[in-house]
């Protein structure tokens, strides 16, 4: 079991009001699964993804990553997990605009402590795998949305993480580029990565091993297909 959560609750304080984004989430995900998370806007999907990606901590409940309880892991090791174990892909790409494509992709490798030469070599290879070898020195602003998302994926996988988390990766894309992106995820799944993808797209959902429906911070269909 690569991921399992026990009754995860996440509350946000907005002044005096408490917003319950997650109200007791139990999920179990096996290594190598492709899981789709679906649900209406505001239902807590992103919140869950952030917790799974070790970017946020739950208000209550337990999260086990590789059978280790995340709340007990030290900060420095969490950073290492974000760096090596998890690749995050966002709806809005989140590339650094002032860095070129190569530097953007090299970023996780830099935080792993790899030398510039090694980083460049790996970045080029990974960029090739998403079909953008010729854009190494371009700035993100010079690329189309679909291309930018491919760069973001390249960055997410550059350290060969076992888990890839994608939060509505095709949300800002037209159908064609969206399909390109999805086929990349499909390939990554075939290569053995565990993939969790938030989507509204039925086509994606069909490719998934299973679909988790979230409504109002709660799972609707449980853990089964």
């Amino acid at each position: 079991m690569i991921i399992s959560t026990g009754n995860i609750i996440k509350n946000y304080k907005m002044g005096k009001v408490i917003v319950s984004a997650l109200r007791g989430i139990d999920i179990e995900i096996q290594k190598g699964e492709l899981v789709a998370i679906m649900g209406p806007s505001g239902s807590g999907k992103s919140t869950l993804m952030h917790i799974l990606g070790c970017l946020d901590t739950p208000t209550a409940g337990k999260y086990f990553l590789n059978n280790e309880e995340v709340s007990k892991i030290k900060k420095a090791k969490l950073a290492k997990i974000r760096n090596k174990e998890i690749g995050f892909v966002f709806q809005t790409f989140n590339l650094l605009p002032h860095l070129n494509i190569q530097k953007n992709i090299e970023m996780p490798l830099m935080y792993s402590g790899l030398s510039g030469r090694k980083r460049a070599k790996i970045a080029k290879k990974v960029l090739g795998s998403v079909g953008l070898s010729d854009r190494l020195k371009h700035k993100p602003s010079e690329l189309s949305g679909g291309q930018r998302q491919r760069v973001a994926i390249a960055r997410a996988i550059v350290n060969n993480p076992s888990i890839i988390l994608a939060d509505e990766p095709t949300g800002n894309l037209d159908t064609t580029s969206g399909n390109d992106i999805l086929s990349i995820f499909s390939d990554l799944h075939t290569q053995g990565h565990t993939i969790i993808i938030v989507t509204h797209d039925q086509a994606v959902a069909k490719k998934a091993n299973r679909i988790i429906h979230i409504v109002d911070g709660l799972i609707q269909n449980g853990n089964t297909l």
Partner: protein
Amino acid sequence: MVIPFKESIIVGFSDLWSRKIRTLVTITGIILGTMSIIVVLSLMNGIQKKTMEWMMERGGLAKITVRRDWNYESPTNEPKVFTLREINLIKSLVPEAKYMNPVIRAYIKYSYKKNNYWGPVRGVLTDFSAIEEWDVEKGRFINEIDIREYSDVIVIGTKVKEELFGNEDPIGKWITAHGKRVQVIGIMKHRFMENSGAVGNDNALSYLNRRCFIPLSTMVRKGTGNDEINSFTVKAYDANSAPDLREKLEAIILNLRHGEPVFRIESAQEEAEKMKQQQLIFTIIFFLISAISMLVGGIVIMNIMLATIKERTREIGIRITVGAKRNDIFFQFLIQTILITFLGGIVGVFSGISILSYVSEYLKIELFANAFTILIAITVSVGLGMVSGIIPAIMASRLNPVEALRYE
């Protein structure tokens, strides 16, 4: 493990480069600050060196000068000059004095063949040469026999030699001085020191080259005819004992003039001390001023860095997402701030040094920024970066990644 220092520098540089205008604005204050540190400290050093050089040229730190205090108006008409008897009395009272030399001044006409020259003459004793540490270039200086025998001899300055003799050798020649025949027995060494200040002669010591010297006794008996000694100089055995000797002389002379401070008694050592103290005060004041302006500069830098971090909130979120540790973020921004101020410091040092050469040329003082001055300037600028960068860097490293990612 934090990402390597080299990496932080590279990231820092590329960040600065992509925000050139902001970097420039941030850097300006530091450039001006370090520049002023370089210029003022070097100026201070230069002036001090020049002053010491001057004092050394004028007989060193063991020298004490007694001359009329022109600011003092005696109500009882106490004599403003010394008699030779008084000088001898004073001399007998201060065995601490290694040398003593009274001076009678006059301004006279010299002629040799068809050449005439008007210039100052000094009636002196043999000690003069030792006190002023100034000897003859050729021939000899006035000796004890000359004094005792009222010899009609003269030692001339290089300027006088040039005016009267041109290329001719003056030693042994007879010239007319103030209507009397005197024989040239020596030529003083030529004196030169580069003049500071934009105006006037190139040679700050050219007035010395115009002087001639004759035995004091000859001057009294055959020259001015009166026994009026305008001033005298004393030399202590060393610079450290000069202040005590000065005090003793002051007491003796005050006594001779019935408690009226008709004369001013100055020791070069104490003048040098006073000068150093004034310069120290000036340096401290300057440091306070530059510290305040640096503080203001630091606040500006801090605010710019805070704005930068706010603007780059999303970037910080992204970096944390891909594996940056808190320390990585902290050092990224701290090093960047230090890099800015260091860069400003370097530019400031270089512009300070280049300005220095102009100031140096203008004031005719040899000015150079020594290693210590440069070190101070660089240390101050780096320190400023550290101090003003630490709070923004801490704030950056404490950002919540999820909130940072939501930041527009």
